[in-house]
């Protein structure tokens, strides 16, 4: 078993709505960083929610070696770290410390181990100094980084980020990118921020109307202007794809290795 995500013919229809996913085949290997692009309503979030069983559709889906079904949900959620788009949804505890502790405590770890994980996860996102603050006292960029720490503390082999750079100013976005670049995990990033996808990920998947319409190296997919235009995607004017250098590309450690 070498791949982290293996979906075959994944379908899902929201009750009373159109089909959100119509047969998705996707394979993500260990250590890959994959950008999931697509216009609004393409099914990106639905696909993302399948990965930890928040939504269970038809077809086959294996994530980190587990078949996604009701009886595997508990284990599955320990292995897939989902960072939601709005950090205010993710950070629901009164203090940052308790929020970062929430996942590890649910995993049943002892308190010493939990304390260590809080420290390590916050250090990873450079947010150790806010450990006793309340989430509402943080800026959007800080909240986003703490939200990432809340899942890093669970040490999941797969990290799923939903629009990580939404609503960030350029500086907060750059800091976030720097943090993400140092995280040694298999990553699936849904985003509209094509430069972020280009800088962070080696591979790009485009989802449109519930189907995968492109899947390939980031540099190639993002250079295909016609393909992008056809799916309401656009690089910023004057953006030079070739000038992008991915600063660090750590290879992923085996699943379960410390963050």
């Amino acid at each position, binding site marked *: 078993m070498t791949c982290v995500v293996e979906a075959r013919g994944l379908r899902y229809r929201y009750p009373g709505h159109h089909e959100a996913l119509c047969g998705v085949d996707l394979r993500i290997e260990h250590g890959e960083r994959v950008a999931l692009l697509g216009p609004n309503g393409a099914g990106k979030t639905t696909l993302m*929610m399948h990965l930890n069983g*928040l939504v269970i559709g038809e077809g086959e889906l294996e994530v980190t070696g587990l078949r996604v079904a009701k009886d595997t949900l508990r284990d599955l*959620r320990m292995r897939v770290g989902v960072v*939601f788009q709005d950090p*205010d949804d*993710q*950070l*629901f505890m*009164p203090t940052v410390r308790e929020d970062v502790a929430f996942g590890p405590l649910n995993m049943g770890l002892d*308190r010493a181990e939990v304390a260590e994980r809080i420290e390590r996860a916050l250090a990873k996102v450079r947010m150790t100094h806010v450990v006793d603050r309340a989430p509402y006292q943080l800026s959007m960029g800080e909240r986003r980084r703490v939200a990432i720490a809340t899942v890093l503390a669970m040490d999941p082999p797969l990290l799923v980020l939903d629009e990580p750079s939404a609503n960030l100013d350029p500086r907060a976005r750059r800091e976030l990118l720097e943090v993400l670049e140092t995280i040694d995990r298999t990553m699936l990033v849904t985003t509209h921020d094509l430069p972020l996808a280009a800088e962070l990920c080696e591979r790009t998947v485009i989802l449109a109307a519930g189907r995968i319409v492109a899947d390939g190296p980031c540099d190639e997919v993002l250079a295909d202007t016609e393909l992008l235009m056809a799916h309401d995607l656009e690089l910023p004017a004057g953006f030079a794809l070739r000038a992008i250098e991915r600063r660090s590309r750590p290879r992923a450690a085996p699943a379960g290795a410390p963050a």
Partner: protein
Amino acid sequence: MSGLCNHSLELTGLAGDPDSRAHRLDPRAKIVGLLAVTIVAVSTPLDLWPAYVACVATLVAYATVARVRPRDLWLRVRIVLPVVLVLGALVPLVRSGGSEYDLGPLTAHQAGLEIFLAVSAKALIGTFSAALLATTTTFPSVLRGLEGLRTPRLLVLIAAFMYRYLFVIVEEVGRMRAALVSRGYNPRNALQAGPMGRMVTAMFLRTYSRGERIYQAMLARGYSGTMPQLVPLSFRRADAAFVAGVLLVVLPPRLLGVTGS
């Protein structure tokens, strides 16, 4: 709107010396102790006034140990207290009985006046003990204390979420109101309240869907029905001494009255 937020932030924060012995007490001890003061005050009739004195003395001693400045306390009690006192002040005018005092067009009655005094004393003591709890204990600790005292978990959870999302919702309301106002909405009578109603509806729907998203975020991190505790509370000797001390001061004057009557 930021004004309101800052104001609220100030009120949820601690005051006094954060390292004082009062601040360091276990939240359960503080809740029990200060609640005891409030219950004694609320249940005491006016003629047992020494019990009120004992309560006030306890609160003053507590505030002194915590080094809470009177101004910080006033900032917190001024929200509730004036309303209670103004309402209480109307009682002597409507409740008849006992001697009467002529106040021009109005007449105050002895019985009403006694009720007013009792209500004011109870309100003052109750409000000040709540304010003292708030100045010496962070809200998350109060919640942990309540949970430790076997308050139903669901209620504690609701209070925790309310605390966490109050600011988010206040900000959202502020943005919506700014959007209304900047398009010239300036209601002058009840008939123009329509947009306000729709704003409330939108707010409800947004909060509802936010609730769903939060629940999903909780599930995603392994939530299975119970909130995990990070730091277990520890009830030490100092905490027991505090509770015992408070009870020893406020209970005897109250109970003496019971046996004497």
